[in-house]
C-alpha cells in the first residue's frame, strides 16, 4: 500500500515539476559556459507629465521601491525592480526593471516629471538563466517587489521541496527492488565518494 502511494506520488509530483527541473538544468549550461553578446538596444523612449511620488530623498528599502513601482505602469513596464539609485545632485531616480524576456533601465527626472526608458530584450537562454537566479541572495530586503517574482519564488521553492521528496521516495522505491540493491549501493557509494572528493579538493 505504502509502496503504491509513494510510487504514484513520485510519478505525479515528478511530472508536475519536470518542466521546472528541465529549466533549472538547461540553464546551468548557459550559466557555466555562455557569454552574453550585447545586442542592439532599442532606442530610448521618453515619457512626460508623469505622476511621480515624492519622498525618494528620504525613503529607503521596500517603501521607496513600492513608490517607484507606481511609476512603472506610466512608462508601460512591469517587472522586478533590481535596486534604486537616487542622485541627489540633479534629483534623478535611476532603477533597473526586469522579468524573463527583457530588462529596462528607467531614469526619472523627479522635478521635470519625465522618465527615459532604455529596453533590452533577452534571448531564451538568458531568460531561463534569469529565472534560475531569481529571487537569489542579492538585495533580499526588496526582492519580490513584483507579484511575478513572488509567485516564481513559490514555484522555485516548491520545486526544491518536491525534488527532495522525490529523491527520498526514489530511494525507497529502489530499495524495494531487491535485485537492484547491490548495483545501487555501488553507484550510491561511487556518487558519495565523488561528491566528498570534489568538495574536499575545492576547500582543502
Amino acid at each position: 500500500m505504502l509502496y503504491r502511494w509513494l510510487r504514484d506520488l513520485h510519478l505525479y509530483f515528478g511530472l508536475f515539476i519536470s518542466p521546472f527541473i528541465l529549466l533549472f538544468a538547461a540553464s546551468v549550461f548557459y550559466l557555466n559556459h555562455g557569454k552574453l553578446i550585447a545586442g542592439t538596444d532599442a532606442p530610448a523612449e521618453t515619457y512626460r507629465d508623469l505622476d511621480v511620488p515624492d519622498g525618494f530623498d528620504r525613503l529607503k528599502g521596500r517603501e521607496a521601491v513600492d513608490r517607484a513601482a507606481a511609476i512603472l505602469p506610466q512608462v508601460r513596464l512591469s517587472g522586478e525592480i533590481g535596486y534604486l539609485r537616487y542622485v541627489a545632485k540633479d534629483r534623478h531616480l535611476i532603477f533597473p526593471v526586469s522579468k524573463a524576456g527583457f530588462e529596462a533601465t528607467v531614469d526619472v527626472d523627479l522635478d521635470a516629471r519625465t522618465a527615459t526608458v532604455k529596453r533590452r530584450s533577452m534571448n531564451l537562454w538568458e531568460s531561463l538563466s534569469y529565472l534560475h537566479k531569481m529571487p537569489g541572495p542579492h538585495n533580499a530586503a526588496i526582492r519580490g517587489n513584483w507579484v511575478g517574482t513572488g509567485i516564481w519564488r513559490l514555484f522555485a521553492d516548491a520545486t526544491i521541496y518536491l525534488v527532495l521528496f522525490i529523491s527520498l521516495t526514489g530511494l525507497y522505491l529502489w530499495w524495494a527492488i531487491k535485485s537492484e540493491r547491490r548495483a545501487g549501493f555501488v553507484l550510491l557509494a561511487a556518487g558519495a565518494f565523488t561528491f566528498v572528493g570534489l568538495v574536499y579538493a575545492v576547500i582543502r
Partner: protein
Amino acid sequence: MPSFVKTFEFWNRKFHYYLGLYFLFFLWLFSLTGLMLNHQSWFTDLYERHETIYDPDIEAPAGETQLSQTLDVMRQLKLKGEIDWPAAQPVGHIDFNVSRPNGAAQVRVDLNARHAYVKEFTNGTLHAFQIFHTFSGSRFNQPASRRDWAVTSVWVLAMDALAAGLIVMVVGSYYMWWRLKKRKTLGVVVLAGGVLSCWVFVAGVL
C-alpha cells in the same frame, strides 16, 4: 515488441535510478543551497567571516604574463582559488583577489619593494556551503571572466554532469510514464499543469 525496444526500456529504467543514486548527494547540495540563496532572511550572521591581515616579503614573481606572475605569487603565499584581477593595475603592482567557497584573499603586491599586502578571509561553514551552488569561476554577463583554477573546472564539470543527468532522467521518465496506460490521463493533466505554470514565467507573462 521488437527486441531493441525491450533493451531500451530495460536500460532506460535502470538509468533512471542509477543516475538518481549516483547524483543523490549533488542533488541535495544544489537543492539545499538553492533554498538558502532564495531565503537569506532565514539566516543571521551568514556572511560573518574571520579576517587575517599580513604583509610578507616575497621573491620577484617569475613569469612574463599577468597570470603566470599571479600564480607564482599565490604559490609563495600558499593561496589557492579562482583569480579575479581589477580592470586596471597600478604601475609596479600586481593586485588580485583569489576566492573559493571557504575563503578569499585580497592581495596587493608591490613589485619594486617585493612586498605583499594580504587580507585573507575565512568564510563560515554555511556561507561556504552556499557558495558551492554558484562556484563556476565564470559569469555569462561578464564576457572577460574565465576559469583559471583547474579545481573549479572539475567542479563545473560535476555541475554540468548533474544537469545532463537530470535531463536524461526527466526525458526517460516521460517514456516510462507513457507506457503506464492506467496513469496516462491524470499524468497528462498534471504534466500540462506543470508546463503551463512554467511557460507563464518563461514567456514573461508573470
